[in-house]
């Protein structure tokens, strides 16, 4: 995040809804001009955002099963770390991840990939 300028931050932090809009161990999709972003909520109410495209064959990660801090892609069972977007070894690849902030139950997404 340090590479992002203040101006960009104010421009790009977008309010996207409430934490409670996303089911626990589930995900919802934010549609942007640059494509879909999947926003995940873990059992512990942590929220993560990744490009909604598996590094393997582009499967929609938002449709996967969330477990721990991982999601399993619905197409070919790749497992992706929610915090980094990296595929769980031995698979290799990375889905871009986006910063999310929670304030008073509201979600804010920064539309600049980490």
């Amino acid at each position, binding site marked *: 995040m340090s590479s992002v300028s203040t101006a960009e931050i104010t421009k790009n932090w*977008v309010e*996207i*809804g409430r934490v409670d*809009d*996303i*089911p*626990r*161990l*589930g995900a*919802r*999709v*934010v*549609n*942007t*001009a640059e494509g879909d972003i999947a*926003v995940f909520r873990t*059992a512990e109410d942590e929220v993560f955002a990744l490009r909604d495209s598996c590094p393997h*064959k*582009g*499967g*929609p990660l938002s*449709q*996967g*099963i*969330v*477990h*721990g801090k*991982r999601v*399993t892609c*619905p*197409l*070919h*069972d790749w*497992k992706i770390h929610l915090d980094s977007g990296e595929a769980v070894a*031995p698979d290799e690849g990375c889905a871009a991840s986006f910063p999310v902030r929670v304030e008073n139950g509201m979600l804010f*997404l920064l*539309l600049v990939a980490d």
Partner: protein
Amino acid sequence: MKEKLILIGNGMAGVRTLEELLKIAPDLYDITVFGAEPYGNYNRIMLSPVLAGEKTIDEIMLNDDQWYVDNNITLHKGRKITQINRLAKKVVAADGTEAAYDRLLIATGSNPFIIPVPGHDLEGVIGFRDIKDVGVMLDISKQYRHAVVIGGGLLGLEAANGLMQQGIKVTVLHLVNTLMERQLDSVAGKMLCTSLEERGLEILMKASTKEIIGKERVQGVILEDGREVTADLVVMAVGVRPNIELAHKAGIFCERGIVVSDTMQTYDPSVYAVGECAQHRKQIYGLVAPLFEMGKVCANHLGQHGFSRYQGSMTSTKLKVTGIDLFSAGDFTGNEDSEELIFQDAANGVYRKLVVEDNKVKGAVMYGDTIDGPWYFDLMRDGTDITDFRDKILFGQAHLGDSGHGDENRITMIPDTAEICGCNGVCKGDIVKAITDKKLFTLDDVRAHTKASSSCGSCTGLVESLLAHTVGGNYSVAPHQKPMCACIEHTHDEVRTVIKDYELKTIRAVMDFVEWNTPDGCSKCRPALNYYLVCQWPQEYSDDYQSRFINERAHANIQKDGTYSVIPRMWGGSTTPAELRTIADIADEYDVKTVHVTGGQRIGLYGLKKYQLPQIWDRLNKAGMVSGHAYGKALRTVKTCVGKDWCRFGTQDSTRLGIDLEKASWGSWMPHKFKMAASGCPRNCAEATIKDFGVVCVDSGYELHVGGNGGVKVRATDFLCHVSTPEEVIEYASAFIQLYRENAHYLERTAPWLERLGLTYVKQRILEDEQGRKMLAEHFRVSQQFAQQDPWEERVQGKDNHEFTLLKQVG
């Protein structure tokens, strides 16, 4: 202050235990390792390929020095521990180094047994155990011409083969008349002997060594019967002895090995032992899979989890000699109560013998074609009753009514470029390379790294065989029973039992009760648990939405591009002009790219966006159509022919019967997809004999068939029985479905389930036990009361609305 853990023995079993421990409790201990050898941890079972020149030492290193550094482990290489002081809780090395421990792990392995004949201490007489021995053999084979290997067992033959690859003449001396007599019977031993001799090995049977002669260096071996063999090198491979001296001296109770409990603890509870030096329930294991299993259990106890127990392993053997396929498992000699099933084709070099007792496989010996080895081993391990297929068992799994993998049964003969896994396009060469380069030992490892056999699973047998052949003598399918997934040690059956017995009614309750290793399971176990709970508590359990695969959340089938398909139910494959018009209108309005007639006699619309689904379902609902569950582990279709209403051969109203079957069973969740069919006559146009439940109408009534499927492995049904009325058909079908629902593992179709349990069992439950059958059918009927709600209609009315809407549209 962390507790101190010391490992004595820097070999595979000990270090594997540390790896398992670091996985579950990375910061619990200060770990120190003492190894007598001056190397890091290497793959001892790969020494044969090193000797044969197929591998280098570097290629067989498992953990290099950096690994120990990265994991904060202090490694003392080349420091042999000579004393354990249990009172002071410390160990002392030969050079005087001392280290204190809170817990001690002994993994000292074994030593080759050197026969104490005269001359056994001459230069050039060695065992075959470590890198040093291999080095000596390689040096000698460069300078000299003749090698003698004493012992024609697994290790001896691998050593002989390796030496032969180095270009020197090798003679094997074997005490009895059959090579590898602990693994092979005389026929297979003879076949092995012939093919080794064809490769240039000299083999002397009934050869008892009397003396090894030579001045300083060895020059030859004299046998008891007076025969004499020239030798520049003698390799003793007559067996190993557990290395227990250190433990024994420290007063730890030993018999042949260091005696351990099911948690791998010795009689001193702060001292553990794993690997070849440990003796568990009278058994000592020298194969890698059991050692790894012990490591896992030991780590579990060291990591203070303490819930797993080692209960012994059943092992199988393969010889790691390129081009020779042999397989042996269990008791292959039998006794007066057992029988032998034998297949022998000398010209093709194929031999199979199964030892069977009470219709269960007790042991197997195979030579030449070993592709079915893992299958026989599974039958043996699971104690499967083979009554129903013992007439075909010798021909292999491929002959149990499925198309299997045809001729690809000699794994060593297949070229490297041959595709093994058709789903993921993985060739033999890729798999072998991954196994050797990445040092893989288990099927799961191979699946993770190569994806081979990880999709449809039909090539699992081939992949297991490749693994067995590549890791060779030390491979075995170890786990006694298969755990549900990596999150839990327990089997599917065990988990189902606790759900029932302890009346657990939520996923959380099950996970807490059985102590799941992960906070909320994974994509494998959660859907399974959800199904088990749905099945067990149809009335009370509320479905765990987030534990369902996307198809069962969206009630549509996800396609490769992230779009969905919609397939409405067409009862018994029958439709009307009005339904067709509605479907056609929807296809027009939504610009549906593909309209396809499915294999189950219905029409599918493909390429729809998720948000469009409820709108389309609304239209279909209004025209009287409901979800076809074409996306679920559920009742799919009942395929029919037009029957006696139209067909001149028809014997019964098969269409009506199909519709009634579908009305009775739609909406039910199953362990896997479930398909039915009803054919109006034995011409069987509805293909009822490849369905999970099939009805073939005959003049006198209805023939019921079970356990068939098309798909990956085609399996024709087994004939269950003949009944007289449509009402009976429904009752028997309901009972069969319920038995399958209550009994099968999640994601197990009826075919493998039936093969696992045996048709005999199903007949007992459905045919012989009338009361039981009626009860099963009634249970199914009751659970259907809660299942038969159209999921499309519910969602049209707003249920799970979040599933079909965006969280936010930005920009």
